[in-house]
């Protein structure tokens, strides 16, 4: 009898251990990049802590090699694999076909399969918040945006930023410079310098290093963290930023796999687009600091007139919007919105759907600069 119980315990323990999947991550950059990959790795660590699953990760994987690295992760026993770059799409789909029992998550992608879901911690709401702050802080009314590629994701972020800036400062314009690269510190540096020379005095960016923050800080101009906290790079000038918490998505999905909600057959329609409401993407110079105290007074002093909220300081407006978006009660992309060619994109009161935002191509009417594929 005793033996039987011992055996049962053993079997249960084994089954329980089996239930805990091994989770693999494929990163496009080094984990210490202070940007994109770092943010994903924080998410991985959170997943490990909260669910106690074993994780594996591989850094700096060239896009073309993703398949062979998936092979190796599977060899190492991974049964859930997250590929964290758009460029991994083809390789992920191909590998998913070869490993029908393994579950895949492809970040920022759109191609899916029965065992491949897509996910993104979507930041446009934070960009909108940052637009409010930058618009209020700028004295020249010229905001600089150093952007990676003219793709819908980045365009949506530029527009959200521009809409926020305009809300508190009708004269604010957003000057865009393209790097055509996710990682180009030298380009980011010179683009920032060029914008400074042209009179911009607040800076936001889509690039994988804190270069823009460092460059703007030399002149004392405010800038914004990107992906993860870059507060340490300039505690006196990082006003806020867009922070992602990929851990929320990783935990939710892996939990779903462990309790059987998600299987290798039902991921075809699963697309996480998580925002403020889910806590996947929030505004802040660093976690817990939505507005850098350095700029608190300036933002409290700047008053605007909101049609609904009445006379309100920008500081209070920012806090209010954060509250509203966390509760899912406010959308930055709410009409009336006219693009810079004069087309009415959204009529009074009309709210953009997620689908529309994911394929956004138009430029807000206070955006200046080259704009590929403008409708």
């Amino acid at each position: 009898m005793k033996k039987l119980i011992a055996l049962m315990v053993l079997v249960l323990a084994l089954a329980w251990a089996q239930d805990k999947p091994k989770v693999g991550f494929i990163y496009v950059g080094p984990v210490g990049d202070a940007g994109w990959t770092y943010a994903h790795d924080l998410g991985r660590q959170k997943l490990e802590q909260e669910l106690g699953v074993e994780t594996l990760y591989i850094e700096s994987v060239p896009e073309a090699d993703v398949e062979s690295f998936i092979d190796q992760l599977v060899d190492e026993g991974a049964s859930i694999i997250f590929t964290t770059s758009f460029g991994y799409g083809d390789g992920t789909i191909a590998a998913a076909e070869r490993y029908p029992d393994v579950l895949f998550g492809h970040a920022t992608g759109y191609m899916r399969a029965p065992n491949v879901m897509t996910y993104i911690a979507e930041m446009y709401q934070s960009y909108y918040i940052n637009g409010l702050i930058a618009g209020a802080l700028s004295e020249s009314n010229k905001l600089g945006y150093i952007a990676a590629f003219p793709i819908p994701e980045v365009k949506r972020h530029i527009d959200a930023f521009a809409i926020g800036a305009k809300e508190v400062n009708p004269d604010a314009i957003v000057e865009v410079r393209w790097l055509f690269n996710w990682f180009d510190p030298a380009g980011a540096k010179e683009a920032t310098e060029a914008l400074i020379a042209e009179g911009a005095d607040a800076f936001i960016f889509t690039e994988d290093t804190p270069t823009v923050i460092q460059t703007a800080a030399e002149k004392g101009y405010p800038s914004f963290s990107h992906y993860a906290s870059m507060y340490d790079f300039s505690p006196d000038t990082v006003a806020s930023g867009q922070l992602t918490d990929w851990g929320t998505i990783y935990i939710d999905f892996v939990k779903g796999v462990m309790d059987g909600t998600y299987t290798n057959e039902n991921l075809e329609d699963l697309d996480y687009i998580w925002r403020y409401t889910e806590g996947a993407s929030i505004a802040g110079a660093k976690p817990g600091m939505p507005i850098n105290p350095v700029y608190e007074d300036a933002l409290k002093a700047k008053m605007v007139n909101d049609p609904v909220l009445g006379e309100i300081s920008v500081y209070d407006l920012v806090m209010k919007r954060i509250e509203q978006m966390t509760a899912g009660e406010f959308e930055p992309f709410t009409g009336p919105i006219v693009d810079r060619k004069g087309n009415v994109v959204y009529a009074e009161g009309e709210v953009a759907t997620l689908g529309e935002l994911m394929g956004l191509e138009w430029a807000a009417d206070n955006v200046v600069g080259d704009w590929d594929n403008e409708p």
Partner: protein
Amino acid sequence: MSFLGYRLEPRAKPPGYVVFLYSFAAVLIALIITGFIFIAFGLNPFSAYATVIQKTLLSWRGFSQVLLKTVPLLLTGVGLVLAFRAQFWNIGAEGQILAGAAAAAGVALFMPLPPFLGIPAMFLAGFIAGGIWGFLPALLKVRLGVNEIITTLMMNYIMLYIVRWLINGPWKGKNVRGFSESDKFDASFVLPLFKGTRLNWPTLLIALLFVLFIFFLLARMKLGFEIRMMGESPEAAHYAGVNFLTTTILLVLLSAGAAGLAGVGEVAGIHKKLLEPTSISQGFGYTAIIVALLARGNPLATLATALLLGWVFASGDVMKVSLRLPDQMSGVINGLLLLCIIGIEPLLRYRIVRVNGAKLGEREASSGT
């Protein structure tokens, strides 16, 4: 100058087996040093090597991964052997690879061809495009004496920006959600793979044939003889009536064309689209320089040297996953490997002989300044 009764004696040209043995020893030394790096990372070097070997050489899938990196290195490397034999220092293979890749993409995206012609047309276009990219530096060198190291290096950057411009501008795909890459190639422009791997056989076959061709060219054909003469003794070549212009241009067309073929293999076999140039070629054009130099001018030797460097590439990947070693290890090992191999150079140029009174005197008399 003797030490413990031995001295170094210069020799003109070491026999092949000596070069092979010494090179082999150099590789071993590099691997032993790497073993100490493993220890520094808290790994048992023997089991670490066992893992690497098991995952790169003893499994077909692992080995196909080695070959995947070897093929572009082989094609490009053997092309460079040809150029280096003529003392044409082609540093521009990276650009020539990209030129081939871009040409193949152009064919795949814009040429309505019957399916069976798609792949041959791509290889032809890639060969020509690579060759054209090497043509200008060749012309400038022979006609005007412009240093080819610099022009070929410049051409790399120019092609890199051309490809970037293509994928951000005119060739940007319609179905790529705004990302900077071309549309996917149609199936008839995608190279067939060995089953269960990502390795395509047409490029592998072409690479092997090309190696044989260059071998025969250098060993047996008139053009090969002229190329060798041009490299080894330009004055003699002048007297012999070698036309430097045509010979140089022909050899560069072959050399750069080979790199172009490698580029075709990368886009049509792996990526199936034109994309960011640093993703198309992971520095194969530069690594191939090492492949060629290690082969010491022998086209057949590139089979070994390309395989060696392909193995280092693939081993780096295995180390990253299975041994949890940092990404930078393969660079360090590559560098060590190279330094060890060139470190044995004096041993190739000299041999150690036991001091023999009479002989010593003779030698010193003949080599006096």
